[in-house]
């Protein structure tokens, strides 16, 4: 062996980073792409609501109580067309939905992100520390998961009272366990792999091993759970608001809008509940479409 073996370059002509591969695999499904576009449009509407909504439903000066409960398409007293009708306060439903989406998405995404941070840290700690710490955290998770989420959230909100922050807090409490369990599961698998031993052998500090080597390899299942949990949090918040324990009446979310129209359903004034319901449905379906495809792409066991 006198000459140095220089290993030849692999035959692959184009160099594809894992991220590029991920993008092309994700885009392979038309329906997931449609879900993503829909979701981005909904986010854009929510973010831009103050600029594109025909009316500010929070500004009492713009409301006219005489326009209450008008049918979709009616022209109101001020020469203003209510394309989706009005509620009993005379608020334009279209504007109400745009502003409601803001609250719903904020609560859903905010609680999902905080729950993810809390749950992922605890799950990672459980997997890496093992022993008593692991048992303690995982029994807490079991306890949490044994309660129906809606029941636990109702109890917390009954105790804390209404308010957006309280709803976020309640949703974090009922959701962190999913993240903790997911992260612990994948971290237990990953930490036995040889690249973790190699990092230990290279005398890298534990913190660096956890955050640079272990955590990035546990992310894919976390992203999937996270997407699904955003949709779940939005639905849960809508349920809580519908039951009258969620956001306050001054900051209506989609759930509260549905609840407002509920009493008029049987008197033929369907639009007050119906259109916010459709908006909620479309939002959750679009997130789930994206989440399903993410799960398929990121889960190696589903790959052919």
């Amino acid at each position, binding site marked *: 062996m006198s000459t140095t073996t*220089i*290993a030849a370059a*692999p035959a692959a002509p184009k160099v594809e980073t894992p991220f590029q591969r991920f993008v092309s695999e994700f885009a392979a499904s038309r329906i997931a792409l449609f879900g993503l576009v829909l979701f981005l449009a909904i986010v854009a509407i929510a973010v831009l609501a103050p600029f594109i909504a025909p009316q500010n439903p929070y500004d009492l000066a713009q409301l006219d109580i005489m326009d209450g409960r008008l049918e979709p398409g009616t022209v109101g007293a001020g020469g203003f067309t209510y394309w989706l009708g009005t509620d009993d306060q005379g608020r334009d439903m279209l504007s109400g939905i745009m502003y409601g989406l803001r609250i719903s998405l904020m609560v859903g995404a905010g609680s999902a992100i905080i729950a993810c941070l809390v749950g992922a840290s605890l799950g990672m700690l459980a997997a890496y520390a093992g022993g008593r710490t692991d048992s303690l955290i995982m029994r807490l998770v079991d306890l949490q998961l044994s309660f129906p989420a809606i029941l636990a959230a109702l109890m917390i909100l009954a105790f804390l009272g209404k308010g957006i922050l309280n709803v976020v807090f309640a949703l974090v409490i009922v959701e962190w366990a999913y993240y903790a369990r997911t992260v612990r599961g994948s971290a237990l698998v990953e930490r036995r792999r040889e690249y973790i031993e190699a990092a*230990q*052998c290279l*005398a890298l500090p534990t913190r660096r091993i956890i955050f640079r080597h272990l955590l990035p*390899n546990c992310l894919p299942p976390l992203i999937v759970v996270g997407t699904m949990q955003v949709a779940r949090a939005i639905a849960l918040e809508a349920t809580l608001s519908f039951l009258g324990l969620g956001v306050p009446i001054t900051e209506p979310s989609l759930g509260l809008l549905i609840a407002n129209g509920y009493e008029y359903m049987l008197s033929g004034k369907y639009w007050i509940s119906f259109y916010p319901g459709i908006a909620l449905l479309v939002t959750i379906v679009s997130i789930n479409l994206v989440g399903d495809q993410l799960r398929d792409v990121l889960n190696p066991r589903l790959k052919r």
Partner: protein
Amino acid sequence: MSATLVAPPAAETLAEPIIELRGVSKRFSKTLDFAGRLAKRLGANLREEVVHAVDGVDLTIRKGEVVGLVGESGCGKSTLGRMVAGIMPPSDGTILWRGRDLRSLNAAEARNAKLRTQMIFQDPYASLNPRLKVQEIVGEAPLFHGMAKRSEIGTYVDEQLRRAGLDPSLKARYPHQFSGGQRQRIGIARALAVQPEFLVCDEAVAALDVSIQAQILNLFMKLRRELDLTYLFISHDLGVVEHLSDRVVIMYLGRVVEEAPAEEVFRHPNHPYTKALLAEVPRIEARKRAFAGVKGEIPSPLNPPSGCHFHPRCPFAFDRCRVERPALKQVGPGHRSACHLNDAA
């Protein structure tokens, strides 16, 4: 130095020990959880299970030596390798690094000892972090430990890759873009990057094609000459070990059963287990004979046989073997074996 390398018995008297194991054991115990303890109290037939993966091993490896560690799967050779590499602490016994107890070293010395011993892993697909580029995999540790400056890390990584036989222009790629042999070279470059003097190779070629195996083994020997490396070469394949090693250690169920210079092991095996292993190595002159193999399965380390662990499978076992654990005794120059038959003769 090269003279001592080709004459292992001389090396044993000359070179200083780089690592010494004294009575090192590793136990893995599965303790009962709360439900298990409750069930036990209520009369269930449960107990805490303890596996003696490594049981009282003494081993000295001298500077410049290549020691082959051989045994069937599950005999504790990988666990021993991980303790030597400092990834796993021993349950019992002491490990001396250049004559000093690893536990008595301060943080900086312990880190240095750990870096000086590097490990090459079996599975080239699991041993590289899939989310890092090759340059990050190889360059992370030297950068972190200050062996190379940030401005020079590019050329430093290039040098390690070239040494391991890889084209440095591939360093911006991810591990999944390489073949098994190339990945193993990346693992070798990663180990070389922290300037080790001792490499623990845990079945480092077992997952590779035979032609690639030879290339990687040749690379190991080239690096040994260039960098004056010492090796602990763990393998289940006697054929691989025969060509590389100065000295061979045979393990069975957590214990060392025989230890001798490589030629001696193959010419005059002493322990019945070694003889049985050698009988399984395919040789051209013996191609017509039928392979008998070692009788039976390796016993469960959860419940090892009493006395000599090998007695249930040994054709020469007698009463003493069933009760008394044989000690490693000198049977020739540099040749030790743990078998009661040596006392009877």
